[in-house]
């Protein structure tokens, strides 16, 4: 368990969790010249959780996290980390926060074991570098110079260096990029072990399976703003409802006809068409008369009970659904819906 708990504001009734706050970012804004990297981001990190920061490339995730750890100064907004301001109290915070950064190398001829020993010397009470290396599958690579390590080994060494100081908070950016599937799973097991030791983790990722597997809560950042926040289940429910039906219709049918068929099925929350015939999003005004062709996919989203009523309603209207796939909405679907929903106006569905 971490050494001294920091004081945190008492939980308000609005807090989702009554756990202590490790960090709070409020209305963060950061620009580089004329580019707005972060427009308005607020998030909380609770002690002992794994918080996922998701978003498309260029959304502002890395900048947000760099402001959180004090690597960059925000233009506006406040950051409190372990009760301190990372911009002013960096020296007091750095022993307690471990960072694994993307695109950050080590000197080419430095050996992995040497790097671990070197970084361990920066801290008063470091972890056993050798044991950490073994947990990460690096035991055989300790004498290999950095330029001789594989991409996956470099990634794992990076994680080890972030954890060698026994931090209270670990910030991991692109945890499993470049790792093969087995290594990813091993790394996820390791991170869950680290969390079990009491370390709070902020995980920046764009892998949905990783977010779903590891994260207690997620913050979805899109174009510099928070698009959604909550547990993975919350996000899926918020974005999509819980069931996604994909099907095809053997004969071409106007979308309006499909809509009419599903009008009375109250469980349906969204209806979309994907495929070669899919038109671009409407600019506003009346919907174009889309025809659903045999190679287009109809995507019906709704609550858990949507499957049977929707299929029956289509059959009753002589629209025979084929190639039907029914599954739970995944985080990936939610991600796409939440981040693209502001790019084009979603087709308002009257069902």
């Amino acid at each position: 368990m971490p050494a001294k708990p920091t004081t945190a504001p008492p939980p308000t009734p609005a807090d989702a969790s009554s756990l202590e706050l490790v960090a709070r970012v409020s209305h963060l804004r950061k620009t580089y010249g004329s580019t707005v990297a972060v427009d308005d981001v607020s998030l909380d990190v609770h002690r002992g959780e794994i918080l996922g920061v998701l978003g498309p490339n260029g959304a502002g995730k890395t900048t947000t996290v760099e402001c959180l750890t004090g690597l960059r100064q925000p233009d506006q907004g406040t950051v409190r980390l372990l009760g301190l301001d990372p911009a002013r109290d960096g020296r007091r915070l750095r022993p307690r926060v471990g960072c694994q950064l993307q695109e950050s190398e080590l000197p080419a001829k430095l050996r992995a074991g040497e790097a671990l020993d070197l970084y361990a010397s920066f801290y008063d009470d470091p972890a056993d570098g050798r044991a950490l290396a073994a947990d990460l599958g690096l035991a055989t690579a300790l004498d290999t110079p950095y330029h001789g390590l594989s991409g996956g080994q470099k990634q794992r060494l990076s994680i080890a260096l972030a954890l060698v100081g026994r931090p209270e908070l670990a910030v991991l950016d692109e945890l499993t990029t470049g790792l093969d599937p087995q290594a990813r799973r091993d790394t996820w097991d390791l991170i869950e072990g680290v969390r079990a030791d009491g370390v709070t983790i902020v995980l920046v990722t764009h892998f949905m399976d990783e977010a779903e597997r590891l994260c207690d809560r997620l913050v979805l950042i899109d174009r510099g703003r928070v698009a959604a926040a909550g547990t993975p289940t919350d996000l899926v429910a918020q974005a999509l409802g819980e069931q996604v039906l994909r099907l095809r219709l053997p004969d071409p049918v106007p979308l309006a006809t499909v809509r009419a068929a599903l009008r009375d099925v109250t469980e349906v929350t969204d209806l979309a068409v994907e495929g070669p015939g899919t038109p671009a999003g409407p600019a506003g005004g009346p919907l174009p008369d889309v025809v659903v062709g045999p190679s287009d996919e109809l995507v019906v989203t709704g609550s858990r009970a949507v499957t049977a009523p929707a299929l029956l309603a289509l059959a009753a209207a002589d629209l025979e659904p084929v190639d039907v796939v029914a599954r739970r909405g995944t985080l990936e679907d939610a991600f796409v819906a939440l981040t693209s929903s502001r790019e084009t106006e979603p087709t308002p569905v009257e069902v």
Partner: protein
Amino acid sequence: MTALRALTLSEGRLYLRDSGTVFFALVFPTLLLVLMGLVLPGMDEPLTDAPGYEGLRPIDLYVPVVLALAICTTSLTTFPAVFGGYREKGVLRRLATTPLPASRLLVAQVSVNVLALLVAVVAALVAMAAVLGLTAPQQPGLVVLAFALGITHMTALGCVLAALVPTAASGNGLGMLLYFPLLFLAGVWTPGPTMPDTLATVGSYLPLGAAAQAMSEGWFGDGVPVTQLLVMVGWTLVLGPVAARVFRWR
């Protein structure tokens, strides 16, 4: 083990693993002195028409100049480029997230380079003594003082470059840009009495020039080169803190 010691050992190992650097820094001064003395005509003959320098050979006049060259090489050729390379590859950015302060990193690198310099200088003097005969300095204490101040102020200059250069290539380029003019003003091409007076005056206020002149005075003269010594102290006190203040982690 403390961070500084661990870092110094680590940088030392990395330094030795780069064989090109090692050769140039450690062996070059020796080669320069010995080869010049043996190969260039007249280097080994006592001077006949230089008042105040009777009994000395041109190669003798070169000894303090080569010491200055060694200082210049270690502080400007690879030192800034190493930092530029680290900055470019994100090595420094990662270190910025650890408790290690910038100053420790500079000190560790400087220590390794100064050690290399001392080895290079001792090697050059020993080789000189063995092959061509070494004239003992008139004021050894002054020579040592001038050498030490030469190291401090040139290192400070190297640190300013190291603190700022964004890539290895720019570190190299900028280092080289300063290297040759400073060597010129230190008298590598115009040692002792062959240097024109104006040039010597300018050189006495600039880095390295001051060191070379102070060491020469200590070796062959009996005066105290107060101006040059103060100039070196001044450069150290100005450039050192500037380097620590402007140090960039990315």
